[in-house]
């Protein structure tokens, strides 16, 4: 091969590799994006069916119950406007507490219960997961617009 052709071949190979990588990436990307929704959106049915997503907000005080097997827990995630019951089987992260922010990943099943496959561990006591804080803030502004009632930020 002439140097010129060789260079084109190399460039061609590079482009093919790039194209393959891009295809892989976009395909994997498409199927692995996890979207975040607020409890209000979940209660209003604005969430995807049969697909995993994240939900975040405050764990309602006094809502945490444990089944006899010691592993299955039920609690309620709220953005102070709507409440979503969550079920999770497994060990909760150290910083999971009633009255604190939490984010859960899983699916919404019939009956409006959110079955979590993962409850996210957070690293700091005073720290509110940004998604949860965001959900609370959104519900607050929406509530203020629609009903005029003041939603008290519990913190």
């Amino acid at each position, binding site marked *: *091969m002439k*140097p010129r052709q*060789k260079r084109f*071949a*190399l460039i061609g*190979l*590079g482009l093919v*590799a*790039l194209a393959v*990588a891009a295809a*892989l*990436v976009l*395909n*994997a*990307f498409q*199927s*692995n*994006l*996890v*979207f*975040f929704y607020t409890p209000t959106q979940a209660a209003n049915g604005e969430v995807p069916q049969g697909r995993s997503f*994240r939900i975040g907000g405050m764990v309602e005080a006094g809502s945490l119950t*444990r089944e006899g*097997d*010691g*592993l299955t827990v039920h609690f309620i995630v709220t953005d102070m406007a709507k409440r979503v019951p969550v079920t999770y*089987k*497994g*060990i*909760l992260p*150290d*910083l999971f507490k009633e009255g604190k922010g939490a984010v859960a990943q899983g699916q919404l099943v019939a009956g409006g219960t959110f079955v979590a496959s993962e409850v996210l*561990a*957070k*690293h*700091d*006591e*005073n*720290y509110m*997961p*940004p*998604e949860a804080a*965001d959900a609370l803030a959104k519900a607050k502004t929406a509530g203020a617009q629609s009903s005029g009632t003041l939603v008290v930020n519990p913190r």
Partner: protein
Amino acid sequence: MIPEIGHYALILALCVAVVQGVLPIYGAAVGNSSLMAVAKPAARGQFLLVLLAFCCLGYAFAEKDFSVLYVAATSNSQLPLQYRLAAIWGAHEGSLLLWMFILSIWMVAVSFFSTHLPEAMRARILGVMGLVSVGFLLFMLTVSNPFERLIPAALDGRDLNPLLQDPGMVIHPPMLYMGYVGFSVAFSFAIAALLGGTLDAAWARWSRPWTTVAWCFMTVGVAMGSGWAYYELGWGGWWFWDPVENASFMPWLAGTALMHSLAVTDKRGGFKAWSVLLAIMAFSLSLLGTFLVRSGVLTSVHAFATDPKRGLFILVFLAVVIGGSLVLYAWRAPRVGLGGGFAIISREGMLLANNVLLIAALGSVLLGTLYPLFLDALDLGKISVGPPYFDTVFLPLMTPAIFLMGIGPLAQWKQASLPALAIRLRWAFGVSLVTAVAVPWLMGQWTPLISLGLLMAFWILATIAVDLRERLLQAEGGGGIAGRVATLPRAYWGMVVAHCGVALFIVGVTMVKGFEVEQDVRMNVGETATLGGYAFRFDGTQQVNGPNYVAARGTFQVSKDGREVTMMYPEKRRYFVQNQTMTEAAISPGLLRDLYVSLGEPVDNGAWSVRLYHKPFIDWIWGGCLVMALGGILAVSDRRYRLAWRRKEAAVPATAQVARPTVS
């Protein structure tokens, strides 16, 4: 008083850094050697000043000076001394000071080990490093001062995050930063070459050891971070594809590509412009990593600051460094030239392919890490990219790269013959294929992924064996095997060892992914749970008091086939100051398996929810990384670099340029 001295030292260091960044580069441009000579003393002076500042902060921590805001925020009077000192880099301001301190260490190292470099080159390298440190010192002095006073002084500090109170935490950040900042040397070499317009094989030979050493630190640093997550977070995972981990992994990928590309530039004079671009990329990603992790954009144990002024400074700094060096690259790279030609089937060709694959992998990690941030910044919704994305993308990209890794070292430079390679490697391929299929089958669980993973590992080992055999047969040294082994250069042995490390790593990952067993159970006192052939008996918990925490310590007796293997004591700790609960897992490590027990929550009557793991070969993951780093160190110790070192002292003219080390 002491903190003010530290603060003042930083201001002086900034002045020195400005001088170091401006005069030598200007001197090199106009050919004024007295201006160029400023670089060395400036670098050393700056080191002393930053060292002084660092010691001042250390003193404030040791003496529990809670009138310093940073000390009050990250330590506490009950915190043991070693963690008070580690708290220097326990949060944002201090970790920047550590960054700066390590940069000054690298500068001093360059000033001592650069006597063989042409004067203009050395002046430019130290000048560029000086400019980088101007950026960091400005950042610290304007928006992130670790010596800021708290008036009135706090009665006691807010304590270090309990997750960070761990021996691994003491050593992980300095290691990782040695790597991050080490790439600034490669970066400065590249910028110096662009400024000077000379980029030859000698340039590559000079920058190779620096790059390799930085890469070794980086490898160990990333591995330690992963190990920390494994034993400290209590979830038993070793890699989460968390943005914070990705931030350290991306410069590692770029650095790996750079090392291989520099090899071509050194040996064959090829890939010149590409090496320069990779050096820029590696350091830019290091900066991006530092800032992503430390700026609070990403929420994790590492994120502290959420001051918008800091964010703005960081963005501007990144834009200046990355944008500036890319503009310089676009302007000057054509002068650097492309280097010699080569056929597609050749060692260069394979290294190029490897590089492309590594960079493609890097790009996919970058996309998965930054895309959620962009969406969030543009207020287009909140998403996260899960680990499955990275797994699916990484495997197909790395499989051909690993395959090439086996062939590359056997291929000739410039032009190789594919049929000849196939004949040389037919046994290696056959053996690794058979082993890869047979081993999981014998272990009783065969899946394509396990076989693929093992195939890659065995392929690396088998091709290394073939390569070694050929080279030793060709070697002409007398005195049997030992003499022949000694004829092969250490750089070659370094490569062999590092590639073996990759194989060990792959074995570890494959076995853990394929064979690990996990169980969450509720256990009453005296109850036994069985997992992976081991019986875990729970003997209840008792209260234990630590220096700044109180813990419930569980006792587990582990036995196999009725014989006691070990006792394990996982803890659930409550740290007083931040009133934070922490899981301290118990791990029984072993060459072939780890047993891992962590306590969940107390249920009732002394019963606990407990998490049990059996993780085969997991220590091979970190062992493999250490072996890789060892290979890097071996390569750096090669004689040819030391020859390059001494050349200037002996003032040997250009005839020594091509001398290769022979048998001694």
